[in-house]
């Protein structure tokens, strides 16, 4: 049977041997374990995070002894009492919460047309330009960008220089609430656009043409067809922008100049200025709770399915 042997080339036999070896090392019945194995690294990371949260929870129940700079041995709710009664924290919390909600609304309103044009334009040049303009700020980073705004908006900055040319006295543009929100919106815009673009791509252009032929002008097409179908993208982008700006540190620190602290800045102060780990942990936990509550609220209002998860939406 020489012919049969030559019809079964050497390379095949090598592959067979390799396959047999692989089956010996990793029998097929182990196959069911593969998904869990692939999940393991991520689960481990999340697990570590839970451990950290538990330690923070522990610290939040101890007060700082200002004479010895040691944490108390016994558990007390004193930190929580301070966080809820001292007006400074209420101001900071309200500033962060209201600020992040405004930033979210403004970002979504600005990001939607940007993403829409980027997805729908028939000109590849325009699409590329929009993409470059979107990604460039990503390479620069948040802190450098904030400094950029200092240069542009400062008392001797470009804007005030330009104003002085037409005889307007310098305006204080920095170190106020609106400067922080402005910086945040500018920072969040690429995130929102990147999350909206796939959602808009998923809406067939033909649906808009159909709405037009059925009697809807562009405004009603937008309201009755595009907007409802873009909801998963809007919810996702909104969640990302909301949580990122609620927990932001750099923009309030740099553009707020210490006068416009968000919760993250207050936590930083407790940990690294007054070294009060207990109060810092308490504020951190309250921030986590607020964020989770907001996300939970969005999910109850719009349903977790709006993020196009699960099999229900085809």
């Amino acid at each position: 049977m020489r012919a049969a042997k030559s019809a079964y080339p050497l390379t095949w036999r090598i592959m067979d041997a390799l396959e047999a070896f692989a089956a010996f090392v990793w029998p097929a019945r182990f196959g069911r374990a593969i998904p869990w194995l692939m999940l393991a690294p991520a689960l481990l990371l999340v697990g570590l995070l839970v451990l950290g949260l538990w330690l923070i929870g522990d610290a939040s129940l101890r007060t700082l002894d200002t004479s010895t700079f040691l944490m108390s041995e016994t558990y007390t709710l004193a930190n929580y009492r301070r966080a809820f009664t001292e007006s400074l924290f209420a101001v900071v919390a309200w500033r962060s919460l209201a600020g992040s909600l405004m930033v979210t609304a403004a970002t979504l309103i600005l990001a939607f047309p940007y993403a829409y044009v980027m997805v729908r334009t028939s000109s590849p040049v325009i699409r590329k330009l929009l993409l470059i303009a979107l990604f460039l700020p990503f390479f620069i980073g948040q802190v450098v960008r904030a400094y950029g705004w200092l240069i542009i908006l400062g008392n001797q900055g470009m804007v005030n220089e330009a104003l002085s040319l037409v005889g307007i006295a310098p305006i204080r543009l920095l170190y106020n609430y609106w400067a922080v929100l402005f910086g945040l919106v500018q920072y969040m815009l690429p995130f929102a656009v990147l999350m909206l673009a796939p959602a808009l791509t998923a809406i067939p252009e033909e649906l808009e043409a159909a709405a037009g032929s059925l009697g809807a002008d562009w405004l009603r097409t937008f309201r009755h067809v595009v907007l409802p179908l873009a909801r998963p993208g809007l919810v996702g982008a909104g969640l990302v922008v909301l949580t990122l700006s609620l927990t932001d540190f750099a923009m309030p620190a740099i553009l707020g100049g210490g006068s416009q602290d968000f919760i993250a800045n207050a936590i930083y102060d407790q940990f690294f200025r007054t070294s009060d780990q207990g109060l810092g942990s308490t504020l951190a936990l309250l921030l986590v709770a607020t964020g989770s509550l907001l996300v939970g609220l969005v999910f109850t209002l719009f349903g977790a399915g709006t993020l196009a998860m699960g099999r229900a939406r085809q």
Partner: protein
Amino acid sequence: MMPVVLNGSSIKAKSEEAGVAVSVKAVNMVYDGVHAVRSASFDLEAGKFLTILGPSGSGKTTLLRLIAGFQRPTSGEIFINGAAVSAVPPHRRSIGMVFQKLALFPHMTAAENVAFPLKMRRSDARDIPARVERYLDMVRLGGYGARRVHELSGGQQQRVAIARALVFEPDLLLLDEPLAALDRKLREEMQLEFRRIQRELGVTTINVTHDQREALVVSDEIIVMDGGEIQQKARPAETYRSPSNAFVANFIGVTNFLDAQGGERRAIRAEKIRIAATRDGLAGTDMIVEGLVVDAIFEGERVVYEVRVASLGDALLRVFDHDPSAHSQLEAGSAVCLGWAASDVLEFKP
């Protein structure tokens, strides 16, 4: 199911005028350097079912989109019920359209889809549910109104799309190859459905397809397009029997091109050729050639022969034998005689 009687009085009145519903005059469309439609002109009588037939890239879809208003012609003008519409945006034209991919709104139920054009056109809200119900009944989807689009089968989705395009009683119905994606059985069923609904409502309809069978089955008139130009506009039987040029002859039906004589091309349809083992079996034909069977394909109701004919420059002729049971099937390799009547030969000027 009971036939549904619609009080589409406005549509009936329009068709009774029997005027010209759509008039395309010297329309050209050039984009991205491509001359997609070249000086297309035709008139369509109200209430007629017109099919624009052509291969992909023939400009048929572009012509339809121009009529729908999604694109503006580079030159020329389109008239609907006598009014020039080039400057009118789609949502101000009274045109119902069924799209290739149907374009049903996935976040709405079947009934909400059908109600959409009525809401957009600000119909009296109290009349909408009854109207929607009536049109769902018309497409035999009564009781399916509450279903979401993805809960419906392909054929049911087609019907929702038809109901949605017709519920606001448009002046004109456009069909952009909506049947192309269906399997053959469902497609043929829906073709008849389109025909039935179109006759019932009397709505002027323009259908675009590359399926010659569909064009022949459903249409009052067929426009054949190629290379952006209208090749022929005629009734289906006329298009088939006397194609205006070689392209039309080749595109509709199975056509054998014979030798060219003095620049004139001659052709014979596959079903006009008779085949027999000897000349004796070809009584009544006046053109007889001898050939060799290359292939014989049994298709049930007919046998398709491919016959090589030496006297025609080794041309491969396709022959339909529609009564294969009358004599035994001829095998590949056997010598045969082909015959046809000289009056069946199609002749085309170059």
